[in-house]
């Protein structure tokens, strides 16, 4: 994959079809990959990488990049293409200034998950069938690939590319996903249990804003939480209320636009399952207003910009589920 991508990128650069490439750059270790922009064949050869740890979704960078001169080549994984499409639909990305190559993704790994198994001093990670061979400062370790899989890839919703100019690797299908299982599990708890679950999770929040800043749906020029005039600007979780407020409003502001790319949970330094808030909205939208997948196309109306005269009433919330 990586070689094919580099050679195609070099070709497009040489042809002048694009003047830069957005992809991923090697780090110090096996796993610390940084999204980066490459402008020459030399840079690509030296630093471009596409492997098990290139999970960062680069579509949000295109908001800024496609405003610049010249065309940029973007490598997008299937889930990234949904975010991309959604941004195109919201006129945040200038589609004319980007050349998209869809790339196959077999799921990405999360170094944090390896570390949480007590494996430390990671020097190298190799996939060997169903197992990971991990070279560490303290000797060789193995663990099942499935256990190191990034949370966002565990319940993959689709291996299909919804936007691309060309493909490298296979295009997949929308997968029958079990992504709402955890949401359902929570819904079936009692209110007290749900409350305790979320208090435990949200009280970890350090308000670093990583979830917001990485989110491809959060592209406001000025966020309401940064605006002193909004009345709710809160820089720190000074009270449990503010933790709730931030997470409810953040999720609400992307409701109907969140493609469930899972970046929010991936970047959370405190491992809060933020995606479970977004998924709740997605699940509700699906059940109240019909199946909707944000980013699947660039034409449909967003559920919160739309209505039907016979929509359910808000009292539906009171009528179902566990009290």
């Amino acid at each position, binding site marked *: 994959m990586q070689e094919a991508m580099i050679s195609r990128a070099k070709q497009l650069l040489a042809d002048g079809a694009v003047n830069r490439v957005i992809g991923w750059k090697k*780090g*110090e*270790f096996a*796993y*610390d*990959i*940084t*999204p*980066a*922009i490459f402008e020459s064949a030399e840079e690509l050869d030296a630093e471009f990488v596409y492997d098990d740890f290139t999970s*960062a979704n680069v579509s949000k*960078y295109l908001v800024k990049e496609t405003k610049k001169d010249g065309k940029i080549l973007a490598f997008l994984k299937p889930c990234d293409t949904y975010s991309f499409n959604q941004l195109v639909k919201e006129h945040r990305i200038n589609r004319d200034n980007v050349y998209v190559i869809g790339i196959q993704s077999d799921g990405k790994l999360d*170094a*944090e998950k390896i*570390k*949480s*198994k*007590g494996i*430390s*001093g*990671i*020097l190298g990670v190799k996939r060997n069938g169903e197992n990971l061979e991990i070279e*560490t*400062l*303290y000797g060789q370790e193995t663990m099942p690939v499935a256990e190191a899989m990034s949370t966002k890839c565990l319940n993959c919703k689709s291996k299909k590319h919804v936007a691309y100019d060309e493909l490298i690797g296979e295009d997949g299908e929308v997968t029958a996903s079990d992504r709402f299982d955890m949401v359902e599990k929570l819904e079936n708890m009692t209110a007290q249990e749900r409350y305790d679950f979320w208090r435990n999770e949200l009280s970890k929040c*350090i*308000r*670093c*804003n*990583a979830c*917001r*800043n*990485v989110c491809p749906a959060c592209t406001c020029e000025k966020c309401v939480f*940064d605006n*002193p005039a909004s009345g709710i600007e809160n*820089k*720190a*979780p*000074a009270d449990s209320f503010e933790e709730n407020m931030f997470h409810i409003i953040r999720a609400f502001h992307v409701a109907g636009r969140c493609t469930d790319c899972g970046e929010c949970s*991936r*970047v959370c*330094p*405190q*491992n809060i399952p933020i995606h479970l808030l977004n998924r709740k909205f997605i699940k509700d939208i699906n059940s109240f207003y019909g199946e909707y997948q944000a980013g699947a196309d660039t034409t449909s109306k967003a559920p919160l910009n739309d209505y039907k005269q016979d929509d359910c009433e808000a009292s539906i919330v009171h009528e179902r589920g566990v009290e």
Partner: protein
Amino acid sequence: MLKIALDKIDSLFSAVAEKQTLYIPADRADGASEYKKYENGMKMSSNLNTLRSAKDFFFPQTENLVDFKMEGKNIEVIDIREESEDFVVFGVRACDARSFTILDKVFLSDPVDSYYKNRRDHGTIVTMACSKPAETCFCGVFGIDATEPEGDASCWNDGESLFIKANNEKGQAFIDSVSSLLQDGDTAKLDETKAKTKEILSKLPLANLSTDSFGGDKLNELFRSEKWAELSESCLGCGTCTFVCPTCQCYDIKDFNTGNGIKRFRCWDSCMYSDFTKMAHGNPRLTQVERFRQRFMHKLVYFPANNNGEFGCVGCGRCLSKCPVSMNIVKVMKALEVK
């Protein structure tokens, strides 16, 4: 050296916790660890380090500074400060222990920050030597020896026993308070453990990181480097690095109107945020390039310039594992290094 068998460590914790509040690193459900108030039966985490740094104990993320009552045109200032209770933080690693020295230089320099000092005076830090450093560790680069941690008292673990030594009066008082549980022990095995750890420390992937290209005297050339633009390109402008950092000390002061008075509180702030330097008439750091540069210049240039060459980083490696885009101080140092 004084020691206690590892299987008796619970009795040590209980004895301490009886007299004052004790915090130890404990495991969370997600595998990460964090400092928790000790309760009987709680197990100390075997993780190398806590997810959040130990700076919270002295410089919490939010704290109330002062209250105001407003009546008509009058204001009443209410000093809400209270003497802190005595507490012990157990199991602090060498990197975090050094971070207090750095924070002290900021908060205890004139004019002394009474909020910080209050907690500092009442807190005892018991450090724990590392035996299994991670690939992200680079404390040695800043002259920290992970096998000889600072703090009020230091502990070592040789696999069987916990050895403890006081470094100052506060540490001695701590040891005296539990002396009935301690006995003299032979350090032969411990010395072996230390030697082993030292060997690993020397082989860490970042052990050879050089600070030669940094320091107060390189201010202008580093500031003008053209590499900042490229380095900051992927930065999301979030505050993760700042908030997990044990030495980041910038703060914001804000007022909260509760409806029955005003609370003025301070909270951690991040130089990575767009509003950090924003004024009514403009912003001297308009793009992420300037903000990103500020963070690393502060740690590698400005801080040493004002503090006899001491760097504002302790090499704990938290930002290396937590940055959403893995852009961190090590990559910055390597990129800016003059070879």
